């Protein structure tokens, strides 16, 4: 199908883009990589009256380090981020999760910030943002504000972003030296959206888990932190028996999305297994970086 008619404006600056969004009174959408928005427009699920193209705004395709934060601008494309040595060093969890994100031509165009604003419930990057305690720097007519990932993802395709705001950058705390990470996913084919994916970060001292941050996507309307699982691991020995039990307990209490393709009970089983595998990987990496 073809998209419904719309007005198109190419914004020259962030301020111009925000002014355009504000003047459209909620009828405008930002066009960045277009890899989620345009399919929805082609299928007429989305029919924005106005598109604000931000692709030519100079100076926002960066991936850089600012102090103890990895900062990614709104025009940084997936492929650029995925192949960045800085990301591999400062956020290895993200680099690993990128192995599961889409395919070359989609990654060439799609942006991280656009992906996060789309807030697909089965997308990998919202889970990575939650596990890493990232913050979203959002700019609107009144100035900018920082929204923690935990408050940014509100519901199904829904974020805390207002209609006159632009997500200008993502700020991810640089991974501490002895933090281990793990990311596991099951989907129909590689590159598809996840049935379930789990992101885990662990710190281990004297054979005890001292910090855990774990998130999952694909199980419900939005990506979630698995707070109960995190708490149950505190002070425990980082071994298979601990992780198996904790992951089973945690997945028993989470409500699951059920559909014709993937029954809720299967998602529950996947969460349990993938959480255990992600935790085992994270523990092994935390211990090997200890040496």
């Amino acid at each position, binding site marked *: *199908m*073809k*998209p*419904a*008619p*719309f*007005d*198109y404006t*190419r914004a020259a600056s962030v301020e111009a883009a925000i002014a355009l969004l504000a003047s459209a009174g909620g009828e405008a959408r930002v*066009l960045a990589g*277009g*890899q989620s928005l*345009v*399919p929805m427009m*082609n*299928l007429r699920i989305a029919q924005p009256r106005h*598109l604000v*193209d931000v*692709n*030519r705004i100079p100076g926002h395709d960066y991936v850089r380090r600012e102090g103890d934060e990895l900062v990614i601008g709104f025009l940084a494309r997936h*492929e650029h981020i995925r192949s960045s040595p800085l990301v591999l060093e400062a956020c290895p969890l993200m680099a690993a999760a990128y192995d599961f994100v*889409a*395919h*070359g*031509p*989609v990654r*060439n*165009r799609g942006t991280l910030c656009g992906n996060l604003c789309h807030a697909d419930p089965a997308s990998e990057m919202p889970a990575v943002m939650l596990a890493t305690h990232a913050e979203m720097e959002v700019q609107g007519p009144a100035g900018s504000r920082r929204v923690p990932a935990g408050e940014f993802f509100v519901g199904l395709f829904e974020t805390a972003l207002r209609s006159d705001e632009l997500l200008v950058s993502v700020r991810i705390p640089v991974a501490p030296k002895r933090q281990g990470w793990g990311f596991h996913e099951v989907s129909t*084919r*590689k*590159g598809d959206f996840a049935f379930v994916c789990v992101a885990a970060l662990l710190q281990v001292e004297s054979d005890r888990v001292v910090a855990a941050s774990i998130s999952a996507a694909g199980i419900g309307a939005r990506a979630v932190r698995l707070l109960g699982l995190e708490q149950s691991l505190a002070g425990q020995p980082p071994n298979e028996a601990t992780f198996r039990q904790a992951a089973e307990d945690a997945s028993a209490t989470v409500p699951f999305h059920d559909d014709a393709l993937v029954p809720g009970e299967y998602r529950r089983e996947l969460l349990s297994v993938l959480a255990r595998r992600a935790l085992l990987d994270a523990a092994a990496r935390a211990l090997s970086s200890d040496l």
Partner: protein
Amino acid sequence: MKPIEIAFTLNGKPRSAEVRPRVLLSDFLRHQMGLPGTHVGCEHGVCGSCTILLDGRSARSCLTFAVQIDGSEVETVESLGTASALHPIQKAFQEEHGLQCGFCTPGMLMVARELLEHHDTPSEEEVREAIAGNLCRCTGYQNIVAAILSAAAKLRAEKETTV
């Protein structure tokens, strides 16, 4: 919703056109530019048949609006070879039976070209990764992979003889 004037480079030649914002690049190439080599399969970014190169990187032309290519360089499958003078990648597809019905072929050729521009000795796994976003409904993947590996060898040989 008025037409917007755009200027761009298409298969190496400077072009300009007037286009309405809602026109997809895939339709623009086929209907306004008269280049039907770019195929439209699913029209929502799943099948990869419409893959072109936008400023040297592969992109779905069905997920790009034609107005967005203003100032850019676009290459379609027509930039490769002609029926009488096939590009080495096209020649390899012919020799290795890398196409059956041919519908997915333009997209396959363009991602193969992007891959081989960056890696002159790709592994089979890298080839499979490169075509992972392109569907062949004849399921002829084995021969497509063989064709791209053969094309890599042809291009390497070509490079050696020109040095």
